[in-house]
């Protein structure tokens, strides 16, 4: 296959991802503007970050008047999963995937692109670029529309859309928690810690709450349920 064919296949295969991103990022755009950011700022965040949970947490911290250290640590922790995905993908790259391609394509390692890319036996850089273009187009357009038109919508609708991202997060965690008791315990532990910080220790900034709760719960789960290699493979799939 030629470079162009790989690219076009990537563009086409990522259409469902792009459409999904369009709506989820619409919700992010609304949330960002509600938190005090401008439409331009929200759009730039989406264009440069291309990730949902990290962006949402970043905006929460900015709105909360958090420090840059909190931003950096939170991004590091929330997006750490991309490091794992990057490691997994680095094992299945085609010979054409030279170092410059790695440097560029790394930008587009998202949960969904990773899921599609890891189905390839030999991952072509242009296939990945195609997927990134479609996905990023949806993500950035949706953010812009949500941020700019979100305020035109009646409050009842924009309020209702505010729950979308959280719904997506639930849809990532719950099916896995249903399959694996270890994930269920990890998620419930994290949720319990998070509730505790929200209602009992109210002074800790939101950025650190996420880091503390997530790290503590993951450490508990890692001690109670150390992963086997097969599980890691499953996580990568």
């Amino acid at each position: 296959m030629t470079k162009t064919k790989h690219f076009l296949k990537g563009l086409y295969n990522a259409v469902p991802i792009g459409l999904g991103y369009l709506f989820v990022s619409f919700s992010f755009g609304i949330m960002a503007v509600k938190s005090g950011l401008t439409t331009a700022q929200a759009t730039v965040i989406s264009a440069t970050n291309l990730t949902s949970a990290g962006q949402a947490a970043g905006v929460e911290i900015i709105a909360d008047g958090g420090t840059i250290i909190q931003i950096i640590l939170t991004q590091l922790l929330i997006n750490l999963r991309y490091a794992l995905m990057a490691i997994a993908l680095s094992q299945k790259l085609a010979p054409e995937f030279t170092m410059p391609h790695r440097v560029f394509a790394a930008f587009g390692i998202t949960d969904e692109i990773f899921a599609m890319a890891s189905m390839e036996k030999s991952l072509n850089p242009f296939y990945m670029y195609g997927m990134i273009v479609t996905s990023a187009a949806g993500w950035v357009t949706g953010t812009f529309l949500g941020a700019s038109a979100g305020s035109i919508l009646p409050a009842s609708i924009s309020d209702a859309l505010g729950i979308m991202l959280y719904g997506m997060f639930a849809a990532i965690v719950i099916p896995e928690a249903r399959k694996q008791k270890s994930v269920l315990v990890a998620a419930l532990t994290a949720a319990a810690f998070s509730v505790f910080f929200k209602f009992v220790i109210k002074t800790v900034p939101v950025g650190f709450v996420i880091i503390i709760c997530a790290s503590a719960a993951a450490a508990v789960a890692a001690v109670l349920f150390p992963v086997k290699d097969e599980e890691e493979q499953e996580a990568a799939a």
Partner: protein
Amino acid sequence: MKTALYIAAMAIVTYLIRMIPFTSIRGKIRSRFIRSFLYYIPYTVLAAMTIPAIFFSTGDARTAAVGAAAAFIMSYFGLPLTAVAFGASAAAFVASLIF
């Protein structure tokens, strides 16, 4: 200005997390604890971000609770991410018409 700095920090950190392992790490992490920790991190991060924040996400605890319930039920039955995200919003919206 401060916000621009924060946005730049988000972008740089997020990119480096993807780029450094993608260009350098090829070997397997040997520590079973660290591998396990990293395996659970996405789920604990999302759980901590979602609960209790989801119940404050619509500005009204009652509509948020209805939306959250819809999200949890649809997720339990394995519906796609987009469907769950929409369903939760739709449920919260319908609830806002009733309450």
